[in-house]
């Protein structure tokens, strides 16, 4: 495979962006769910 020096950083960046956004959104959502459940017990699933 030629041009690997350009292909590998491209795929690495894509994985970084997708995992970074997904992980931050997931942790933020879980934190908000826990805080809401603590503030308002009726909101527990």
């Amino acid at each position, binding site marked *: 495979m030629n041009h690997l020096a350009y292909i590998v950083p491209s795929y690495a960046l894509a994985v970084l962006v997708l995992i970074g956004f997904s992980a931050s959104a997931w942790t933020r959502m879980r934190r908000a769910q826990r805080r809401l459940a603590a*503030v308002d017990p009726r909101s527990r699933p």
Partner: protein
Amino acid sequence: MFMVVDATTALGPRKTRSLHRFANPGRFLRVSGRVLPSLAGAALVLTVAGLVWGLFYAPADWQQGDAVRIMYIHVPSAWLGSAGYMAVAVCSVLSLVWRHPLADLAAVEIGPVGAGFTALCLATGSLWGKPMWGAWWVWDARLTSMLVLFFLYLGHIALVRAFDDPQRGYRAGAILALVGVVDLPIIKFSVQWWNTLHQPDSITLTGSPTMYAGMLWPLLVCALGFTFAFAAIVTARLRAAVMERRIRALLMARAQEA
């Protein structure tokens, strides 16, 4: 006693009520909670399948060689950068015209994700441009209009957070988003209006694609996977934002009661 009132309870006419039915934060949390796992699962499967297909199994280009594999990231991120900004603009209209309760939050949460995908498009475009054009960057109409889109996203992100009163920030951000939407047709038609180094579109809504099917299919799978990922990320962020707003409202209500 202070009550946390749902936005839908204050609405009168039946038509308005039916429109705002979809904007009820409680309903949004219920529906999105059911949809999100499927959305995230589909995003994971399609994105991994598309990237593996594009990287290892799709054919190399007879002129560009293996550098064409960057297309499987570059093109979907470009589409989502533009589509994300269009979504911010639609939310801005819903916010300014109908005072849609979720539209402001949606615009705020889409902004950083759209900026991330636009940055990914610019970075991968640069990594593709160097071996093909011999330059990391050229002030080509397509590249420049895409860079302007990235700055519009950054401006929107900064502006909505620049006011002490969030409502003023949302309004200013909505106006900026609507002004900036003029950049989207410029991005789309830049390769037709000007002589650009960037190649013309290989896939259009009206014509048949000018791309070999062995490259088209992994590209479409990647685009679908990236789209589901974008939707899942925005949905999760929006769920968090709705819950954070509810927490603030409950804590303020308690503070006023005390």
